[in-house]
């Protein structure tokens, strides 16, 4: 009975985390930025208010858009949501897990990108096309990088479901510490890339020449915009969750791991906020460097594995 109760509580906890953490993360980031700039800043809950406000507003769509937008927006949201369900929360198992789900995860992210691009191209505007083109062109190198990063985890944990891969990666030997640090850096860079944060993309900008993600959702409004924004929040939360799962020690208890998880995610948000306050946004032609950096880091991990194990 107690076991069941425990599982039920964990289940509720996971749902609460999934619904509330993504906007909260953004709230923390914004607050950190404001404090750094010497302002009082908005409430941490402001992203919630924004989404609720947008949901109440009337939806206006371009007259060139068609059933494709109605199809793509929910698909993007649902595929991000299902991708989130595959990741464990500390030592709590994910909702669904099977062997080889890491590639399903990548496929879902791809599906969400596909939806976002076609949705942006529906508006027949030049800015939307520009954003879509930049987004998809820069993301070519992301997929191999993620697969290689996961494959190194497969090698060290001898299992290929995301549940075990992320849970059992402990920092127990020198080799694992080296690999783990590079993994952490790579996934942290992926948070910035996939979350469209500075220095890759500025969520606060409205200068056309520098927009990527903002340009794509420029024509959306009301409920469309709310869902698109929430999908973006989910994306950044997914990668923060993966990053924090790598750093959770393997030997602590389940309850403690949840605490650890929340602390690490908060820490990540603070670091992202600090980076946004300290660094400028890089020039457009230097953005692919970040994607290639992640790819080369993943290749370095593989090279490290080869040299240490042969």
């Amino acid at each position: 009975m107690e076991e069941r109760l425990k599982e039920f509580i964990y289940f509720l906890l996971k749902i609460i985390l999934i619904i509330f953490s993504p906007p909260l993360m953004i709230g923390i980031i914004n607050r950190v930025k404001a404090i750094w700039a010497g302002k009082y800043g908005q409430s941490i809950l402001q992203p919630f208010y924004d989404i609720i406000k947008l949901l109440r507003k009337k939806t206006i769509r371009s007259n060139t858009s068609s059933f494709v937008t109605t199809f793509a927006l929910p698909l993007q949201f649902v595929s991000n949501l299902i991708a989130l369900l595959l990741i464990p929360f500390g030592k709590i198992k994910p909702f669904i897990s099977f062997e080889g789900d890491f590639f399903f995860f990548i496929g879902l992210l791809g599906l969400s990108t596909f939806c976002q691009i076609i949705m942006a191209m529906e508006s027949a505007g030049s800015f939307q096309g520009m954003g879509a083109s930049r987004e998809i062109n820069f993301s070519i190198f992301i997929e191999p990088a993620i697969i290689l990063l996961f494959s190194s985890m497969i090698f060290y944990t001898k299992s290929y479901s995301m549940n075990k891969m992320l849970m059992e990666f402990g920092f127990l030997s020198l080799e694992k510490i080296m690999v783990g640090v590079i993994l952490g850096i790579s996934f942290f860079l992926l948070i910035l890339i996939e979350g469209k944060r500075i220095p890759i993309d500025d969520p606060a900008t409205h200068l056309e020449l520098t927009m990527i993600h903002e340009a794509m959702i420029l024509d959306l409004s009301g409920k469309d915009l709310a869902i698109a924004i929430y999908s973006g929040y989910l994306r950044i939360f997914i990668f923060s969750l993966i990053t924090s799962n790598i750093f959770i020690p393997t030997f602590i208890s389940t309850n403690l791991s949840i605490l650890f998880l929340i602390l690490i995610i908060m820490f990540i948000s603070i670091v992202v906020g600090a980076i946004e306050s300290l660094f400028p946004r890089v020039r457009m032609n230097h953005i692919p460097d970040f994607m290639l950096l992640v790819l080369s880091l993943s290749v370095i991990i593989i090279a490290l594995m080869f040299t240490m194990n042969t």
Partner: protein
Amino acid sequence: MIIFYFSIIILIFGTFVSFLFKKNIKLIIFSGFLILTSLIFLVISSINFINNNFPTLNFLNLNRLISQTNTGNLDYFSIFSNLNFEITSIGLFFIFVLSVVSFCIALYMPYYIRSHLINQPQLNFHLFNFSLLLSSIVLLLLTSNLLIFLILWEIMGISSFFCIFFDGQKSKTINAAILYIVMMHISFLLILIGTIICYNHVGSFSFEKIQLYFQQANSLDLNTDLNKVKLLLFSIFTVGFIIKLGIFPFHFWLPEAHPASPSHISSFMSSIVIKTGIYGLFITLNLIGLPTLTFAKIIIFIGLISALIGIINAASQTQIKKFLAYSSVENAGILLFLFGSSIYGLINNSFFLYLSSILAIFIYLLNHAFSKSSAFLSAGVIINETKNDDLNLLGGLVHYYKDLTGANLISSISLSALPPFGNFIGELLILIAYANYITNYGFSIIPFFVFLFIGLIGGITLLGFTKYFATGFLGKFRGKSDIKKRKLDVFLTFSLYIQLIFALIFSSSFFYNFYFKIIKELSEKFSFLSGNFILEAEMLAINKIFNSFYKITILFLALFIVFWLLYSLIKLKREKTWSCGFISKSNDNFQYTANSFVEPYISVFKPLVGIKVKKKEKEMVFIEDSYIETEHQDIVQKNFINPIIEKINYFFEKLSFIQSGRTQDYILYGLIFLIIIIIITLIRYI
């Protein structure tokens, strides 16, 4: 078996009957017979899907019937029995794919041909060639005799050549068709050489005898003569078959031939004809047995590189059919890679890798055949309706052809290897297999390259298909000609969608047991492995994985449908797209075109895509006329094939003085020839 003969005869008969009528009725009659034939094929091959006891089909096997009743009265049938036709489950699988595609083509064909000006004899010839092509492929999939295989291979090549020739007036079509027939004959020549070597050693063309002969070779001892012959044969056959499959560096015929041929033929070519290459590779593996480990690694690398080059080229294309053709190169590359990894798994005794890569081949092949066929058919509709095949001048088709856009949305998701379609499942399977390989055998160079390449290919595929769909169908129409909102024919729409539905259903885990049965039958032929060749545990593991995969996929689809339905209830207000305050009447040209969409990408992969940009732009104060033009030529063709052809041309031009056109000269040549012959014979006698 007799049913197969019977239905092929029906088809040929139907073709001749249709010759008697005029254009429209002819088309309807031909399609009717084609539908009938493909339905018969479909029923026979799907008995196999439903019924797990394969031998029940054996009463159809004429050969066995004749060998049992050895009476003299049946001489009439003995011609058939000598031909060695036999039903195998892998052949039936290919026939199943073929029957669905040809069924859809039959529904589609009247629409396409009706809109083309073509005279009666040409049309008759085209229909005859198409039925010949279809029957030769069906027989090819059923034969168990190498000589017959070879003859049918040649018939298939020639009839598909004439099928491409549909509108033979265009010089582009002629060039493409000639390139195609030359490449097919290089492939044919290689297979012929292989067959001759085989016959020299075995003394028979029958598959069974060849198999028995090569099983004597001990796979451990590599230096025996027989093993050398085995390796030689394997390489000759492999090169022969991968030319058909369209693998880099022999892929350049494919992006020329597909756009040149009519849409139903390019659909059939890409989904069935090139897939016979994979069937040929299976036959080779069955006949000759396993090659060496190095060989398997080479196949894997060639496949992966071909897939990468194919998709890199595809993403930069702006012609619809060329784009789809290059995408076929990518898919063929992946199929070859899967084939290579199945051999790799067998040699390394990793049966999980073996089983999942062959299963992946079946699922990938089926899904690609159906989705690509649907995509090609809709490309034909687009070209027919807008008289244009350049993505830069298309766009906004969603406002004119809603059904077409829906079909293309689904086929784009399917072909860019996204869940829940078969291309994705194939890649998922092979990545799971390599992940399993890492956990058991440690990390090596092959899994590393597989992960890297599959990832890169996945990323670029996404780019290519978003470009194709978003610039072709969404936004506003970029062209000048007026197109009208039109609802497509019911049959036409049905033929586009039914294949996608089939692709989704038959790549799901309900049918894995059927695929396992084919794999078992294939595997039993490797009798030298039979000692430890039990795949039950691996099958259970795969089934377990995919049961949970389909649980989550169903959850995913259910959630999506709920959200979708809720979402379509929202009240909308329509406004003009806000373009940052820019007011211009020619707002249509503000859209991103296909070229500008992939511009950053082309700058990265410039050496591989072979795109030439011609520009006329001056540094000017006032606006003057300026233009920009892009031209594409395949890198292999440009750098390797064209120089060779030029050399040959140069050589023959030097010799052209012989052909003076005067009869006297020719008589003189004859005289000189006779004199030389006489001198040679005299020298020999002396």
